[in-house]
């Protein structure tokens, strides 16, 4: 072993080249160790990714299902419009006691007497309050429905939903949980009859936020995030690339450009909430853009993302070999042509990497949105980027802080949706990048 480690002497002068021991075994051990470190590093990263994903998915997959109650409901005129005034007062149909319809139908199904008030109250609690809106919308769409009996699907309340998914610990004392044994019994009964069943939770993707977990959805957040991403992409990629090209290729190299470079690096380090302060001061207080609007959010996130993209783009431009530039210049291409025809396409993989990282960062950002009013309860889906909206991470953040248990699976579900977005973005970028990637 010893002679392996000690380098052999001689071989300095061109005397006959004796076979030397160059410590090959030791060097190969080092090589293997080095390789192993790399593998271990990748494995470490991936392991954490999977643990993280697992912890999210195992908690969140149930959010994509929702317990629903499907029942024939009599749209009794006695309940909806006892005074028969709907012709003169359109408000009657809006404010009618729709939940009563639902309760009566359920009570009938379960054979509960109409005078057993405590039981009726418990039955009411099994149906989501959103049933009111569901039924009202049906009546509003077609007032002739009044008096008929129509099968209707409404959401079960969050507590029943959780219980049906087995998320409620039934061993806890009845007073300390949100569903009573009686309700559980009914739930099982209804499930057996096929009245109560789990269905795919479309509401999660189309509904706006709600204070009722069962009716709360990501609709607003999805639209908001789409607006945000659209604005950030459309603004930050061209501006970032343009700025990088100027700084890297045209700007004279002097103190001023040094300062700008340092400054841009520094902007990447500024905590994101500071961009929120800036956005509040500039876009809302000065430019009088509306609060809570994705436009403002997009602008703020653009400013936040720009440094990342500029830094990555400059690095990518710098990595293009000078000989390519010389070749084009030597043919009489202008500097602009050289850059746009040759350098930029070659730098594209790096630029895309930077852009993905920047966008991903922007997509997951909450803090700066706090100050410009996007961390908010918004129920109406925004039609334009100027209307109030939230964003996915904001929704996650807000749901994570909700007291109701049923929100926690939705939080994880929302995280899954966000991750799905990220993965789609990554895949797209990888596809693009693979078309360009090369080694010199």
């Amino acid at each position, binding site marked *: 072993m010893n002679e392996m480690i000690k380098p052999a002497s001689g071989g300095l002068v061109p005397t006959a080249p004796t076979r030397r021991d160059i410590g090959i075994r030791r060097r190969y051990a080092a090589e293997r160790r080095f390789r192993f470190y790399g593998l271990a590093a990748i494995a470490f990263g991936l392991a954490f990714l999977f643990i993280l994903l697992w912890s999210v998915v195992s908690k969140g997959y149930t959010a994509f299902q929702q317990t629903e109650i499907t029942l024939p409901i009599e749209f009794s005129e006695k309940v909806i419009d006892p005074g028969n005034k709907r012709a003169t007062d359109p408000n009657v149909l809006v404010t009618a006691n729709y939940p009563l319809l639902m309760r009566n139908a359920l009570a009938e199904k379960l054979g509960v007497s109409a005078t057993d008030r405590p039981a009726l109250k418990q039955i009411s609690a099994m149906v989501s309050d959103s049933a009111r809106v569901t039924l009202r919308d049906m009546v509003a769409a077609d007032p002739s429905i009044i008096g008929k009996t129509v099968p209707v699907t409404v959401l079960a309340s969050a507590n029943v939903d959780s219980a049906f998914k087995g998320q409620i610990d039934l061993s806890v004392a009845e007073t300390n*949980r949100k569903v009573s044994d009686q309700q559980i019994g009914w739930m099982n009964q209804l499930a057996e009859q096929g009245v109560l069943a789990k269905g795919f939770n479309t509401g999660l993707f189309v509904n*706006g936020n709600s*204070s009722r977990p069962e009716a709360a959805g990501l609709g607003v957040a999805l639209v908001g995030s789409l607006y945000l991403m659209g604005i950030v992409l459309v603004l930050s990629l061209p501006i970032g690339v343009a700025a990088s090209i100027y700084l890297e290729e045209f700007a004279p190299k002097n103190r001023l450009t040094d300062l700008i470079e340092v400054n841009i690096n520094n902007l990447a380090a500024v905590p994101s909430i500071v961009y929120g302060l800036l956005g509040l001061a500039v876009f809302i*207080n000065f430019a*009088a853009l509306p609060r809570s609007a994705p436009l403002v959010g997009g602008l703020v996130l653009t400013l936040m993302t720009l440094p990342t993209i500029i830094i990555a783009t400059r690095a990518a431009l710098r990595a293009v070999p000078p000989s390519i530039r010389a070749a084009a210049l030597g043919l009489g291409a202008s500097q602009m042509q050289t850059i746009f025809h040759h350098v930029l396409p070659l730098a594209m993989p790096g630029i895309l990497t930077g852009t993905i990282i920047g966008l991903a960062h922007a997509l997951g950002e909450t803090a700066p949105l706090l100050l410009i*009013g996007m961390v*908010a*309860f918004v129920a109406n889906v925004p039609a334009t980027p100027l209307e*109030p909206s939230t964003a996915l991470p904001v929704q996650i953040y807000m749901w994570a802080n909700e*007291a109701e248990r049923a929100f926690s699976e939705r939080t994880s579900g929302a995280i899954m949706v966000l991750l799905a977005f990220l993965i789609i973005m990554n895949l797209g970028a990888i596809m693009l990048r693979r078309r360009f990637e090369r080694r010199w």
Partner: protein
Amino acid sequence: RDQIQVAGSSTVLPYAKIVAETFGETFSNFKTPVVESGGSGAGLKEFCKGVGEATIDIANSSRKIKDSELDACKAAGVTDVQEVKIGYDGIVFATDASNPDIAFAPVDLYKALAAEVVVDGKLVANPYKKWSEVNPALPDAEIAAYIPGEKHGTREVFEEKVLAVGCKDAGAVDVIKAAVADEKEAAKKCIAVRKDGLAVDIDGDYSETLARIAANKTGVGVFGLSFYENNADKLKVATVSGVKPSVETIASGEYPVSRPLFFYVKKAHVGVVPGLKEYVEFFVSDQMIGPDGPLAEYGLVAAPDAEREEIRTAVEAGKTM
């Protein structure tokens, strides 16, 4: 602008959300108001930026607006501010459901959590490590308390209604007064919380406190009543001075630790921003803040009948501060 904009306290947020949502469903000609969260101070700051389309209409607050803040408001042109009380928030102490029942007295909490306590008539750095050292009736577990961070309004209530009271009960006030001449300083010493890691400030929301208790089963956390009620299966609530917190005991004043919740309306916007007037009136109606309303169901402690009536008349009259 066709939407009401609300900002402020995260404590009031769930209630405001329920009202906003119901408002949007009931008044189909108005859009659902936008309710931002961000804290009472931040909400009031936006509120006091000025008057006009670009400013918010309502600030939720889990505390009364401060005089200095009101002055700042006025300086920025927000001269007429309506204060609306919506009810009370109870503050409870709870541990993991697996623990035995706990009964706290303010003095126990003071002794366990204060920075300095009186031992043998002298003020010393808090020496207690276990609850049982503080009071043998308490469990033999290490002290670990998750209390609201200093940014939270709840912290002030905790200090005033628990620590200060406990300080007095323990008879520490006199010792402290003897040591510190200044009245104000003395009061501060009474409510200073130990900083050796046994009392952990939580700057996040109650869900963070809950997660910490889940991770440390013997820890004691401070929660809002509504949060506790929604998670009663995971938590065990402690009595304070022998009273178990509930909507009833808090409404009756038996349970000592509670605080009022407010929102502030920009008078200048009422009647100008579509739906604002209606929203405010809807909020204070018994349908919402009454004892059978959805807010109470969620955990708000409704104000007594007379007080609610008072609130409504004040709103109707457009009384400003």
